[in-house]
């Protein structure tokens, strides 16, 4: 078990970014730019080059192509005036997220690309897969009546257990990591709602009001923990998103529909998760809050998409018949179109996709520059 590593500066590294002042509100975006954020760490520095025009509140509808099947630009809707615009481009780089980039490609049909841009293999949208997720909450009596102090530290932190199991002895492939959290956190909406319920675990009176209630809130403050698993799922050909021909969004753009079924691999993994988490809670002398998820709800396995680690829809590969992009994330079918989000992953680790997206994007960017210099694009 290790504290999770996070990209938050506790020391100044340059003049542009500040140092964490431990407010713990990282999810609201950091005023001091002490966290890693694509805005403060990538986009703002890039804009200082003066070579970037940033269009916000704009939604790309499709990529336009010419007679040779190469991209000539994009059509987009400006959400502010609800009008459609065209933009010319030498190279189009998609980074709309796995499903939305697939959607743009599938909505970019032309005589040269009748099945959607990049989709001669019928692989755009296929092999869509998200991380598995299941979790439990626990009440730990040993954490009651504690000294109150600042447990927030830097924000966004949970304790992390990497996968340790031996798959040979298990009924599912690959594995998952565990995220654990708790502590004397900031009261927010819903705070205290279940405080008095914890009494049932220690044989005391549930409910009440007045001084008893106030006392319960304080006694139980910081005594509950959360445990969640995030695991690797199996990429499957039939798990896919595709264009729904009957439905458009408010911008008039056809939307996606999804066909996604978990296999027994993921269901068995979720069972292993909740069994393990229950054991952890019990070994801490605690109680699982609420009912432990059972078979009827796939052991609490969350719906695909809920962990927001979607990958696979524009998978990379050497064979144009079974993949959408090459190893430089360049479409096999149109050399001046690139996809730099997680759509290109053929599989995923159990951890977040972001760092791999960044690493691959850097490689793709260097390749684009190189190819432009060689006049190949």
């Amino acid at each position, binding site marked *: 078990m290790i504290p999770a590593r996070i990209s938050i500066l506790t020391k*100044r590294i340059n003049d542009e970014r500040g140092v964490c002042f*431990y407010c713990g509100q990282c999810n609201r975006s950091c005023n001091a730019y002490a966290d890693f954020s694509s805005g403060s760490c990538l986009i703002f520095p890039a804009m200082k080059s003066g070579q970037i025009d940033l269009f916000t509140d704009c939604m790309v509808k499709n990529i336009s192509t010419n007679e040779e099947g190469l991209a000539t630009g994009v059509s987009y809707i400006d959400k502010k005036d609800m009008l459609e615009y065209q933009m010319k481009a030498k190279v189009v780089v998609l980074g709309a997220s796995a499903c939305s980039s697939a959607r743009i490609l599938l909505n970019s049909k032309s005589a040269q690309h009748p099945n959607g841009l990049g989709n001669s293999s019928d692989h755009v949208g296929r092999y869509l897969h998200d991380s598995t997720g299941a979790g439990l909450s626990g009440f730990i009596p040993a954490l009651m009546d504690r000294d109150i102090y600042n447990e927030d530290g830097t924000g966004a932190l949970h304790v992390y257990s990497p996968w340790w199991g031996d798959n040979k002895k298990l009924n599912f492939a690959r594995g998952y990591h565990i995220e654990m959290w708790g502590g004397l956190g900031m009261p927010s909406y819903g705070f205290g709602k279940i405080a008095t319920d914890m009494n049932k675990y220690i044989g005391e009176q549930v409910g009440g009001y007045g001084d008893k209630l106030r006392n319960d809130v304080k006694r139980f403050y910081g005594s509950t923990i959360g445990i969640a698993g995030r695991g690797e799922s199996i990429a499957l050909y039939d798990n896919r998103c595709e264009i729904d021909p009957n439905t458009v969004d408010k911008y008039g753009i056809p939307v996606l529909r999804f066909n996604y079924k978990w296999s027994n691999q993921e269901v068995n993994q979720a069972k292993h998760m909740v069994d393990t988490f229950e054991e952890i809670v019990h070994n801490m002398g605690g109680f699982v809050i609420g009912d432990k998820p059972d078979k009827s709800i796939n052991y609490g396995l969350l719906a695909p998409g809920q962990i927001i680690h979607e990958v696979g829809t524009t998978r990379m590969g050497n064979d144009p018949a079974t993949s959408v992009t090459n190893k430089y994330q360049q479409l096999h079918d149109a050399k001046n179109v690139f996809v730099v989000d997680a759509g290109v992953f053929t599989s995923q680790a159990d951890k977040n996709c972001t760092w791999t997206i960044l690493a691959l994007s850097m490689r793709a960017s260097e390749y684009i520059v190189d190819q432009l210099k060689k006049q190949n694009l």
Partner: protein
Amino acid sequence: MINRRDSLKALLIGSVGATTLTLGVTGCKEEIEVPLVETNKGYGRITSEIAHDERLEAQGPFFTSVELSLIATLCDLVLPATPTAGSATAAEVPAFIDFIVKDLPYHQIPIQGGLMWINGESNKRYNKIFEDCSSNEQKQILDDIAYPSTEKTQQFDAGRKFFNKFRGLVLTGYYTTKIGIDDLGYVGNRPNLWDGVPPSVLAKHGLDYDENMKGRYINHDSRDTKATWDENGNLLT
């Protein structure tokens, strides 16, 4: 009516602004007093959220003055003042409840209906509305709805359901104010220099931080000195 959300916003802006101004320079650990300013400016809200807030504000109070008065009475029965902490009404919880039922409209009917249930019950028992009851009479009604049912009778179930929801909203409303946070003792989300678990707490568990690790990742004396590294990536400053 007090715009509670704006007050919260101002608190957040204030504390963040104060941090960047003073902490980086002085490493001051003192809590900084920031005057409350009623403003939307500088608080990262997107256009649709601002419009949403304005729409709620323009509606005016959701509850009638009679309902708000009953809400206030109930609030202070749920969380009365103590020698060291203010009551739920001192923390403006009724205004929070009026706001939250507009923000989350699914609370509206259960809360309104529940208030009617309370007065219906007091009328049945004492032939007067809840607020006109004596403190003892009020508590007799609450004692029947503030705890899980132990009998087979379902006569108080609707009241219990209301009170459970209402109590939850009061707790949220109270403990998200300065009064509530001070009462609870929460000390995060304000400018500070976090230095791990206090030694006194570690000592209770027979633990201490590894001397070799201290100051390696968090060093408050040199935090504002721009980092330089040697050719192997080791931090020099």
